[in-house]
């Protein structure tokens, strides 16, 4: 979080409706002129991928979005950034936010309320990041139960061309997924396949308890992990069972393998 002390904090905005997105960006430019918008995402998958790429200081997340919901993105972000939810949900949800450390904005966003949120964010950016989301896990679980329609359906099968065949791949048999620009490489025990869907769009269908993202470009099946090796103070790599490839773990995800 080097940027936290920076005079130009970076911000990520995720909102699926174009006019609401436009509005939030315009109001944000007025309320927080010194902030730099690193990325504007139109769905949860892009938001998460963009977060990993830009590592912004603050994130404005719509709750109901295609792909990963705002709640799921926030869950993945954890304490890595300050999250402000943007939602049209009613008081019940708002009460839940009040109990936690994160802020919320009701749609349509009004300038004076955004000013307050920005003021709160300015204060928080000076603090240590861990303070922001101490109760996040509980809060998110509570919210997920309270809000209908933001659950994510899991993918069970993936269609992939291998040579001249179209194979139906059982997700559980995948050792790891690796992003290859606009394609995704799927590696299994006996063969591998290349599919046209980008990794960021596959992630929303994968169970986060069974498939760990260890890098912006890599998701591994926990059952296939043989070991994780420390390379130096910050870097690690993962060894996969029955496979010679070594997969790098990015700094963001090193905590997954801490004892």
């Amino acid at each position, binding site marked *: 979080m080097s940027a936290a002390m920076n005079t130009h904090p970076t911000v990520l905005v995720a909102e699926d*409706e174009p*006019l*609401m997105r436009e509005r939030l960006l315009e109001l944000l430019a007025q309320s927080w002129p010194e902030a730099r918008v690193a990325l504007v995402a139109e769905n949860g998958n892009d938001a998460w991928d963009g977060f990993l790429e830009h590592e912004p200081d603050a994130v404005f997340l719509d709750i109901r979005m295609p*792909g990963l919901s705002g709640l799921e993105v926030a869950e993945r972000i954890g304490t890595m950034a300050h999250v402000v939810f943007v939602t049209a949900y009613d008081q019940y949800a708002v009460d839940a936010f009040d109990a936690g450390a994160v802020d919320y904005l009701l749609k*349509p966003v009004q300038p004076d309320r955004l000013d307050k949120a920005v003021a709160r964010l300015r204060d928080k950016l000076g603090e240590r990041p861990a303070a922001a989301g101490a109760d996040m896990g509980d809060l998110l679980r509570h919210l997920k139960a309270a809000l209908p*329609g933001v659950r994510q359906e899991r993918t069970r099968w993936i269609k992939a061309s291998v040579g001249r065949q179209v194979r139906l791949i059982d997700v559980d048999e995948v050792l790891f997924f690796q992003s290859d620009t606009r394609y995704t490489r799927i590696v299994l025990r006996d063969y591998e396949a290349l599919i046209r869907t980008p990794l960021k769009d596959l992630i929303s269908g994968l169970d986060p308890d069974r498939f760990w993202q260890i890098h912006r470009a890599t998701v591994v099946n926990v059952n296939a992990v043989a070991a994780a090796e420390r390379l130096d103070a910050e870097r690690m790599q993962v060894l996969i069972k029955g496979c010679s490839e070594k997969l790098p773990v990015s700094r963001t995800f090193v905590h997954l393998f801490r004892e």
Partner: protein
Amino acid sequence: MLRRLVQWHREWEDEVHGVLVDPGHAAVAQSGMRRRLAAKLAALTPIERRQLREFSDAHRGPRGYWLLAKLLMLFSAGGVVWHLFVPAMGWAFAIGVANAVGITLLVGTLDAWFNYRKIVRDWRKFLRQMVGFWGVMVLVDAAFKVAVKGVPARVVFAALPSHLGWVLAVALLIWVPQLAVSLLRYRQYQVLAEQLQREAENERLARELAESQLRLLRAQIEPHFLFNTLGAVQQLAQHGDPRAATLTGDLIDFLRSSMRDIRSEQVGLAAEFGLVESYLKVMQVRLGTRLRFELRLPPALEQVRIPSMIVLTLVENAIKHGIEPALRGGGIDVSAEALGSVVRIRVQDGGVGMSILSGAGEGGTGLDNVRHRLRLTYGDGAGLALRDGDPGLIADVTIPRQQP
């Protein structure tokens, strides 16, 4: 002694009345005969119990006994008149027989009046009992005459056929009117029962309809929809974008039609498609390029009536569970088509498809509501079918072309 008897009688009366009001009280009746009677009363249908209760309300206690006394005096008076016309008959005998006949008629009438269901159902048994009883009485009388009075058997046997004939006539004379009264009462009972059932059914339907409309209203004007739309209007207006006026107009159309249609049970397809169009126009401004839509309603079907807001519910489902969760959005096609004796209304979306619906509590309720209202209106003559459109979902509503 007398006081205790009166007290006992009053308690018993209250007990019977209690069972007539609520059959559950039969369980606390005193054991023995009283318990058995209470159980019998509790086994009656509600209508029968109500009739008995009304009778007992009108005649129980001293009033009932006074009425009985008056009837007995009436019978006795009849006996006196009989004696005057046929002096060969002794006073006592005439009055005794008159009372016996009167009481028999009274009991028979009361029996027919309240026990009609059994009498009509088991009429053969009642006839057999009646004829059997009187036949046995004649035979006993004949045996008595031969054995005790020493009347020659020959004489008694000679008179037997005519006695039996008389007895049969008397039995029929009692049984036929009793059956007639019972039949009449039974018919009344059936009419009443049907009427009660119809009323209960109507009440249930009205309640269900009101409930489903209320649910519809709540689902319709959900804050999520309103606030997001108003936010979009605000943003457009801030920049003087002419779409602000168009979007406001569509929102007004949508709200006005919703309010109108929520109150009416059925609307024409043209009105329903109008409502759907204003909704989709609003959503298109909000979702931008992620939503495309097309509506097709043949002019011949414009006047076909349909339970209000059913198509809208399906379109909202398609938006909420098909288009909005889809990364790249998709299209929605809404069409109506006449297929033989039915009209099929199809809502097809190019969104994420069936898998999303399986676990969606919200969507389930909307679809349940559609199914429920179709059943309320058409019975089994209409239906809602969902299938995978690959991509997206196809929802087909079929209703009979001929309206009920």
